[in-house]
Structures are given as C-alpha cells and as structure tokens.
C-alpha cells in the first residue's frame, strides 16, 4: 500500500515538472520543508547522543528518496556544510535496518586531526540539514548468518558490527559469536554498556574487551588462546589500517582469506577500467605509474600528493582537480574525456594513458 502511494506521488511530481521545467517540483517543495526533495538525498539531525567523551551517535531522519533497507554493516555518506562548503565522509550505520520508523543512526568518533568528525560530534545542532548518500559496502551480515562468527574490532570499528549485532538481537537468532573489541581505555569504548547487556542476554555471544593502554595491542599469535576455533569461524575485522593489514596477512598465511571480511570503505564502481599510464602532478612535481583500476585520487595519495577528497563515490565534487592534459575514464560509466584544463572528479576516474593534473 505504502509503496503504491509512493509511486503515485512520484508520478504526480514528475507530471508537475511540466510546470516547473527546467527545475523539478522538489526544487520548490523543499522551500516548504527541507526534507521534501529527492533531488539530492538529505536528512535532518534529530538527536546527537553522546556515547563517550569523543564519540556521538547522530540520529538522522532522511528525506524523500531514502531506502531504509540497508544491509547490517553497510556505510552511508554524509555531507555537512562547513563554512559554506559541503564536506563528505562515510560512516557505518550503527542502527539495524528498519522495518518501521523513520530514522537511521551513525556513530562518529572525533579524530584528533579530523576537523569534520569533530564538527559532527560537537558542532552539529539538532535540526541541521545534511546531505546523505545511499548505503554502500560489502562488509555485511549474510542472511542467514553463519553458525560461527568472529568479530575483530578496534575503536570506532565497532559501529558496523553493532548494526549486525543489533540485527541478530532483534531477530532473536544469535549464533555462536565471539567479539574481540580493543579500545585504549574502558571509558573510550563506544556501546560498552549495550554490548555487556547483549552478552548477558545471549548465551551465544562472547565478549572479549581489551584495553590497550593497560594491556597492549592484540597480538594475533594469541588468537589461538582467545578463541580456539577461530579458523572455523567466518570473520569480520574493522579498525585502523595497520590492524587490518596484520589481520589480512595472518588469515592469508593460514590460507583462510576467503573467510575474512575487511571494512575498507572501498567502492565497486562497475564500469570498465582505464588503461593506466603515468600520472604527473604538476605543482607538486610528483609522478606515479598506475594501472587502469586505480583512481586518480588513489594514485595521488600513493604518490604522496595532498589530494582533496570527500565522499569518494562521485557525489560531492570535493576531489575535483584540473586535468591539464591527457585522457581519463569515468569508472562508473566508462566514458572518456580529456578536454584540456577541465576540472575532473578524481575519485571516480582513472588514467587512459599519460595524464597531467594541476595539483
């Protein structure tokens, strides 16, 4: 019924565009209510719930065009206007997929050098309108879930796992789950109380807390002692890059790569790859040879150029840099373009032959 209504409403609005062309009726409707537009996905901050001293959960009510059926573990893009400019980041959804209700939650930790995350945690007033990008990512809970699971998380890496655990809890089907959760101190542990309550409630859920300020980091050699049958478990790991690299190596050595899921916030762009070539960054004087699957943004980062970036999925234009010469391919559509001195979005393009960029 609801979807039938939505369909009629969408049709009605698209008929209305005959009256508003070249604009869409939503461009006018959003003047009445900022959420009444599906042109760019948006949401309103309903609540900012402090989790720890430096982390908070943002409860967001999305506007028109949003789908609430994210898979537990996926992330969404959020764009916030700071000094007039939209800044984008991706954060895992910490709430379970909704069957009813109208909000989603993301949990953000303020990073010492991350201006935007600090702004999200401390500076966002309820009522603020933010931009959103639909859920993405393969770091998800399969349905049905495997019988034995292991979660290795550190710091704010708990957020996608929280969405999975809440989903399992709501369904009342908690399999045999071991959660190893590292955090510098107990106070910095996001969701600490809720996790303890879940572990009490569900026999299948075993919680290991590691306070790395006191006890040091997890040594994967100790994994055997922590969780004797880890090799039989489907494993999800989420945390800082160094930890993910170590986990990846460890699983590879044991020939178990297929049972490991890592959250790296990378996007499958779908289109054809470029051909690769040498990318020259004119102002920084750096060069790098890349293959056709590496985006120009990744190439710049590998070369040590301070590349601007935002959503990393082609929405926000933050990563735009001028292409001085050469040809690049849009990895989403496969289109090539190379008009000299035209700005290009580096996060979704790859080199087709040699290129020079103005950065």
């Amino acid at each position, binding site marked *: 019924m609801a979807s039938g209504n939505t369909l009629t409403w969408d049709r009605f609005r698209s008929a209305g565009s005959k009256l508003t*062309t*070249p604009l869409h009726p939503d461009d006018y409707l959003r*003047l009445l209510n900022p959420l009444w537009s599906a042109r760019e996905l948006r949401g309103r901050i309903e609540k900012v719930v402090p989790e720890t001293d430096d982390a908070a959960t943002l409860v967001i009510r999305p506007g028109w065009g949003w789908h609430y059926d994210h898979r537990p573990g996926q992330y969404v893009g959020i764009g916030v206007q700071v000094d*007039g400019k939209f800044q984008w980041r991706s954060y895992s959804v910490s709430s379970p997929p909704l069957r009813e209700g109208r909000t989603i939650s993301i949990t953000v930790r303020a990073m010492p050098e991350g201006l935007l995350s600090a702004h999200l945690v401390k500076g966002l007033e309820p009522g603020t309108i933010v931009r959103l990008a639909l859920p993405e990512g393969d770091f998800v809970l399969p349905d049905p879930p495997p019988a034995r699971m292991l979660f290795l998380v550190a710091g704010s890496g708990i957020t996608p796992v929280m969405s999975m655990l809440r989903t399992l809890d709501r369904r009342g089907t908690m399999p045999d789950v071991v959660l190893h959760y590292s955090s510098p101190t107990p106070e910095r542990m996001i969701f600490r109380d809720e996790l303890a309550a879940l572990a009490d409630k569900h026999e299948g859920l075993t919680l290991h807390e590691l306070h790395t300020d006191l006890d040091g980091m997890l040594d994967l050699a100790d994994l055997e002692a922590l969780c004797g049958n880890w090799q039989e478990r489907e494993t999800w790991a989420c945390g800082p890059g160094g930890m993910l690299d170590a986990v990846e190596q460890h699983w590879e050595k044991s020939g178990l790569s297929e049972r490991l899921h890592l959250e790296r916030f990378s996007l499958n762009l779908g289109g054809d790859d470029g051909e690769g070539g040498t990318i020259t960054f004119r102002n920084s004087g750096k060069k790098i040879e890349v293959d056709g699957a590496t985006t120009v943004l990744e190439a710049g980062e590998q070369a040590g150029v301070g590349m601007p970036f935002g959503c990393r999925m082609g929405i926000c234009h933050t990563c735009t840099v001028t292409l001085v010469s050469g040809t690049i391919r849009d990895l989403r559509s496969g289109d090539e*373009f190379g008009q000299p001195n035209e*700005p290009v979005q580096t996060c979704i393009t790859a080199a087709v032959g040699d290129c020079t960029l*103005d950065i």
Partner: protein
Amino acid sequence: MAVADVQEYTHLTTEEVEQLGRELDAIRAEIEESRGAADAAYINRLIKVQRTLAAAGRVALFASAHAKKAEKPGWAAGTAMLGLAKILENMEIGHNVMHGQWDWMNDPEIHSSNWEWDTAQPAEQWKHSHNYIHHQFTNVLGHDNDIGYGVLRMAREQRWHPYYLGQPVYNALLASLFQWGVALHDLDLERIRKGEKDPKEMKRQLRQIARKGRNQILKDYVVYPALSGRSWKSTIAANMTANLARNLWSYLIIFCGHFPDGAVHFTEEELEDETRAEWYLRQMLGSANFEGGRTLHIVSGSLGYQIEHHLFPDLPSNRYPEIAVRVRALCEKYDIPYTTGPLHRQYGQVLRTIMKLSLPNHLTSSDDPAPPERADTADEPSRERRRKSDAERQPRRTELGAWTRSQQERRHA
C-alpha cells in the same frame, strides 16, 4: 582600429604587464581563500527569493484568472513577479552558476555541471559558446562570436554589406526575441550556411534545442494557460510579457558589456603567445562596466561589473563590488582605461554604434577611443573574417575558471 598587441597598445613594458598580472592573481587568490558561509548564504537566499517569486507570480496569475474582482491587479502583480523571477534566474543565478562561481560549495544542486536555466538555450551549448568562446576570445575579431552575434555589425573592421542597412530592425528583433537568438547562438548559423558544420553535431544540437525549447513553450503557452480556464488568453499574455521583459532586459545588459565606446576590439595576432597577464589586460580593455545601486547590479547578474567578471569569471558574483574597487585602483596605477558610466549612457553609445555601422565606414566617423597615449596606428581596412571552428581555436585556458560539464555533456566532446 583593432588592437593587434595589447601590451604595445597600453604602452606598458613586459615587466609592468607581468606585475599587473601578479597583482590580479593576488586578488583572485585572496577571494578564493575567503569564500565562506556568508557567500553560500547569499546564493542560497537568492535562489530562495527567486523561486518564491516565480511560485508567487504563477499563483497570483492563477488566482486572477479565477477571481473576477482581483483580475487586473492580480495579473499585473503576477506578471511582474514572474518577469523578475525569470530575470534573476537567468542573470544573477543561472549565468553565474554555469560559470562555476559556486562550484566551490560542493553542492550538486548549485553546480555548473548540471545547472539548467529557465531559457530556451540548453546549458551545455551555453557553456561552450559563452564560457569558452566568448570569455576566452573576448573581442577578438573572427574568434568571438558575441561581436554582433552573427546578426549585427558591431565593429568597423567587419566588412560592410547592404544587408546591414536593416541593422536597426534586426536589433529590435534580436532584443525582443533574445532568448531564441541565444538558443541558436552555439549552432553557428554562418558555418551551417557555408556547409562547414559537422552535420551529426548540428543534428544533435538542434535536437537538444528543440527539446528544451518545446518544454519552455509548453510550460508558458500551453500548460499554465490550460490551468487558467476561461482566462487562458490573459495567462498567455502574462507569460509572454514576462518573457519579453526578460528578453529586453538581458539584451540591454549584455549589449552594455562590450559595445559601449571604450571597449576595444583585437585582431587575431593578439592571441599569438598571449600570456596570462596579457589575457587579463585584453579582458580589461575589451569590457565595459556600468554604474548603479546594489539592486540594479543584482538584477543585471552583476554584469555591471563586466570588467571584473571577465577577469575572474568563476569568482562569486557577490564579491565583484569589492574586487572592482581594487581593479579600478590598478587601472589608475598602470594608466589603463576603465570603461564605465551610467546605464543609459552606455546603452546610448551602443545604439549609436548600431545605427552608424549599418552604413559603410566612409559615411560615418569612428568612435574608437584614443589609446592611453595615442599610437600612430592607421585605421585598418575592414576585411571579411570567417568564423573559426573549435579545431582552429586554442584550447580552453585555465583563466576561465572552474566550470565543469556533466557526465553526459562530456560524451559529446
């Protein structure tokens, strides 16, 4: 007299021209650095005002069509609001957004790559004919198709032909049908006539124009009148009046940008090895401002700051007033003319030039300005100048700023 070398014309040394360029670069850098929340608030507020005006105008017309008592005042108010909304959308919003003036906000809803404006010309063709051809080759004979729009003779160097005797009439027609003139501008009728235009590209452009034009006509002359019931005629009249007002106003403002006395033309030689600083200098000498209050400047799309706009096409238009103070000071410092005057005087000069140039050169006197220190350059004989194709032009310069094309538009390159 068209200028072949802008540096020689201004009697500046190479070092002085370069220094001027550096000072202009510094202005750009400072404005870019300081773009922020207040600028974003400006464009967002303006868009809100414009859309509210447009909606209120349509509602007033609808109400006047269905309420006998309020018929006349409702019609007048509705038409005025609609006309103003169209003017604001085309001038201060659409034109400036498509230059990439607001791209720095990273807001896909206010971005050069996908803005479509409320006029017959498709945005993609505008970005080519205006952002690139007109802004890069400003006032260069044979390169800048905006010199007379292929219809009028606006420079003494353009060869006279009896066709131009009708110039006052063409001018009036162009002014009233301006949006359609602009719509056909990127097609380049001259090249089509000479059979030089790629037929595939021509077909694609024509289809694009037909689609956009059809939607525009349907909206104003079919759908809204149909909703007005028995008063459909007065709704048609209202929409036609609003469109006409927008046409006349945009024509007037645009013609005051490069055709008043003082704005000089250049020959092709100027383009050879033109440096960034010389490009700046050409923009300053080829453009003309006009004076007025804040409101006049906003409804003119800030084109009263034509000189500043041509120096920095992609800097936010609300910053042009402060930029103008500094550019003017630079002009004084380097003894470069800064052409400006009240709007009526500027347009008066344009109209006089249109009339004069309808006649052959020997019947009229030149109004070309004396160079800063008059050089002994003879009046160059007028000659036929064929329009250039993109293949014969220099590629896009970085000075034109940050506008981008959409994914779809790039497929057509």
